[in-house]
């Protein structure tokens, strides 16, 4: 039975490119608003702000708006904590019709009062949602009053969903973080670093911390995985910012460079190659012989061990084809290298929020004829995964059942990952996850199903 795969929308054609050998290639169109009527996989400003700040463990995150925005983000991030678990609760003002008519400021002030009375918080975040942006509640004023009254930090986040895309939400979160870190710029810096853009999914930040410890490198502040108030306010004292999730945190790094004169470097701890490279990059940036030497020892110990541990997976994965659809550009870049290290070929790669620099790097890394796409949708994912014969898709929650329905293996590299996938250890976990899914016996059953279906 022949089945016509749908062509992409006209408006989407510049958001999809096919890598060719030509020098002058078409630039991908990215960081645009989605087309109206698209079945986009993207989220909104609020979502962007919330996912960045949510991992702050001892903060009270109050969602000011109707209940939905609070419900859908109630403990979904998968960030782990070594301390308080306040952030895993859901606090909101659950605005009702009368609040929309008469304004929600009073209710918000009451919500803050009630949290202060019951829990004695140090830090409260107030997230603005779509409707709050429209009815014009003055979040700044409510927060200022509460700060004055209680002597604690109450920080507003301008995250009305319609005011841009997820990237705008990242920026709003970065401003909130800068607000929290304060006005003061300590001239004397500490020896340590801030680690920006790891959210401690499946405990990933703890793996990095163990490496930094072995390098003799103190971490002043983690932003925002397993973070806490007392730690975050010390961030201006650090000597260096290292940025992993570039999509969300480069902006903060730039703000901090300006305000606190802290330089930053981009790192990625996904895959052996990038992990080793990043650790060295940090050591060189700090330029201390002892740290440099310890770093080399660490890499020597861990790299070879992991490289060896990957060997059996390489044998079972060689020649398989991977498709990537993730949030940010940096992760996509690391994943292409990781698949290459496993002897796999990346045939399709896309991101929700990558920028043009990311896409240029991706284009250079990608093999001939690779499909590169920005802000895609299920139809396009289906079309290109089929065309390229992908064996596995790496993505997030909405992509999983889609991959499965196509009879394609899946690896969650987003909020639902259950194994840490970073560092040397994580590279092996990643290979194991990919191998377990690709080589599962269930795919044979799907092939039978498909035959039966096609014969109908």
């Amino acid at each position, binding site marked *: 039975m022949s089945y016509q795969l749908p062509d992409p929308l006209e408006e989407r054609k510049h958001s999809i490119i096919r890598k060719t050998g030509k020098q002058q290639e078409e630039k991908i169109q990215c960081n645009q608003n989605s*087309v109206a*009527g698209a079945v986009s996989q993207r989220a909104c400003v609020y979502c962007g702000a919330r996912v960045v700040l949510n991992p702050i463990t001892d903060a009270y995150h109050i969602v000011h708006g109707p209940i*939905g*925005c609070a419900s859908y983000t109630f403990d979904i991030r998968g960030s782990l904590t070594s301390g308080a678990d306040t952030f895993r609760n859901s606090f909101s003002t659950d605005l009702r019709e009368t609040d929309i008519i008469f304004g929600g400021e009073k209710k918000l002030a009451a919500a803050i009062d009630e949290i202060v009375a019951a829990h004695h918080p140090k830090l409260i975040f107030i997230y603005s949602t779509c409707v709050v942006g429209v009815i014009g509640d003055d979040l700044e004023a409510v927060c200022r009053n509460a700060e004055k009254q209680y002597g604690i930090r109450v920080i507003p986040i301008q995250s009305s969903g*319609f*005011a841009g895309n997820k990237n705008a939400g990242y920026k709003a979160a970065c401003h909130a973080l800068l607000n929290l870190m304060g006005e003061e710029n300590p001239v004397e810096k500490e020896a340590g670093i801030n680690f920006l853009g790891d959210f401690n999914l499946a405990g990933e930040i703890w793996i990095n911390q163990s490496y930094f410890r072995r390098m003799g490198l103190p971490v002043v502040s983690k932003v925002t995985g397993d973070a806490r108030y007392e730690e975050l306010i010390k961030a201006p004292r650090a000597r260096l910012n290292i940025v992993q999730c570039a999509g969300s945190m480069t902006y903060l790094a730039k703000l901090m460079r300006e305000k606190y004169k802290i330089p930053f470097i981009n790192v990625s701890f996904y895959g052996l190659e990038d992990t080793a490279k990043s650790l060295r990059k940090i050591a060189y940036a700090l330029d201390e012989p002892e740290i440099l030497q310890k770093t080399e020892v660490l890499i020597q110990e861990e790299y070879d061990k992991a490289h060896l541990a990957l060997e059996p997976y390489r044998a079972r994965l060689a020649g398989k084809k991977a498709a990537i659809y993730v949030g940010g550009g940096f992760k996509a870049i690391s994943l292409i290298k990781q698949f290459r290290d496993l002897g796999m070929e990346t045939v399709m790669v896309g991101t929700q929020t990558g920028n043009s620099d990311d896409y240029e790097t991706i284009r250079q890394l990608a093999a001939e004829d690779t499909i590169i796409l920005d802000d895609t949708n299920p139809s396009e994912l289906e079309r290109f995964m089929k065309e390229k014969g992908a064996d596995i898709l790496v993505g997030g929650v909405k992509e999983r059942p889609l991959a499965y329905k196509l009879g394609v293996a899946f690896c969650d590299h987003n909020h639902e990952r259950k194994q840490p996938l970073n560092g040397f250890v994580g590279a092996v976990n990643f290979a194991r996850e990919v191998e377990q899914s690709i080589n599962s016996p269930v795919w044979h059953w799907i092939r039978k199903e498909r035959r039966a279906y096609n014969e109908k």
Partner: protein
Amino acid sequence: MLNHTPNEVSERTGLVVNPAKTCQPIGAMYAALGIHNCLPHSHGSQGCCSFHRMHLTRHFRDPVAASTSSFTEGASVFGGSANLKTSIKNVFSIYKPDVIAVNTTCLSETIGDDLPTIINESEVPEGKYVFHANTPSYVGSHVTGFSNMVKAMVTTFSKKEGPCNGKVNLIPGYTEPGDMRELKRIAKVMGIESILFPDTSGVVDSPMTGRYEMYPAGGTKVEDLVDSGNSLATIAMGTFASEAAANELDKKCGVPAHVLPLPIGVKGTDQLILELIKITGKPVPYELEEERGQVVDVMTDTHHHFHGKKVAIFGDPDHVIAITEFVIGLGMKPIHIVTGTPGSSFDRQINAILDAANIKANVKNLGDLFTLHQWMKKEPVELLIGNTYGKYIARAEDVPFVRFGFPNMDRSVHSYFPVVGYKGALRLIEMISNALLDRVDRDAADEDFELVL
């Protein structure tokens, strides 16, 4: 987690902590998925649609397709009319559904988009449909959003245009596809032709075919929605999710509305079957009599596990009302009962059930899980029944926990089986008694640990 929930209940006026509900649009989206070849469309910011799809995907573990108007700053100032018109054009040209079911959001409602006019002015290809339900997130809950969309199906499609078709309309409420299949089966074994709507069976529990189908084979067909105006009667299951559509059908086409609780447990299922007999005059087939007899047999076999056990129940109102009735029938004592959905009729219906059984309980509509947890700290229970979010409280209080209702994001396969009907009752008894007996085994000292329970 949640162990810092204080015992003392304090009045809260501004704050909801750990909600027991979500917003209207997701319910509308779920209902719309129950129309064959229909693409739900969210008229609001991109995030709404993304969140709803994610939430539904986590529950059903199937792809959930829906489009969005992708509001921007401009749309929120100048209105979303252009966005919706472009959306309708794009959706028909690329995704090719038969129907677009538009739900509004808090944003599009607050800026005052006039949906009927916008849809009227849109280009809708011959033989295709666009309709809408108003579902501002600051009213009701996901359950009322579902109800509004089902009602809109009636307003849009149902027509009284011929002789009576001899069929019975079944409105299943915000239930699993497994429940919807069971309701259709019950009607079928009674020899009754039914029109069940919305019908998400075959949509969010679709079989593996090795390809992605944006519109799987299931869903109520538009011609059946139209034909529902010619039916003998409508049975609406659940006052919160289904009554509005049934009343609308009564008003619009003169199809009498019969409103029942969700048919959960023996009493609830008996009521459904008696109503079907009343409407159609059909006798009860042996098959159903046998099923009923089996449930009662199992209830007697297991009654000593249940008797006098204190239970806390939370979830969607129609589900909570029905299961409260059921667990009382098993001999249990529900003492804390919460729904997140607003509506005093919840309290009335629950209190009527409690009064008949002479049980005193804490009851709250528009409640949250924080309140429920505090009640449980004050007066402990031996079982918690509710959706996935109950797991925190169950862990904090070390109470056996039965997952029941929407959403269930940490267990699979639930959407394939019913909780309604006699089959559903059997399944619930198994789930509840397993939870209780697993606890007995876990807590037994070596000398008390027994093979046979």
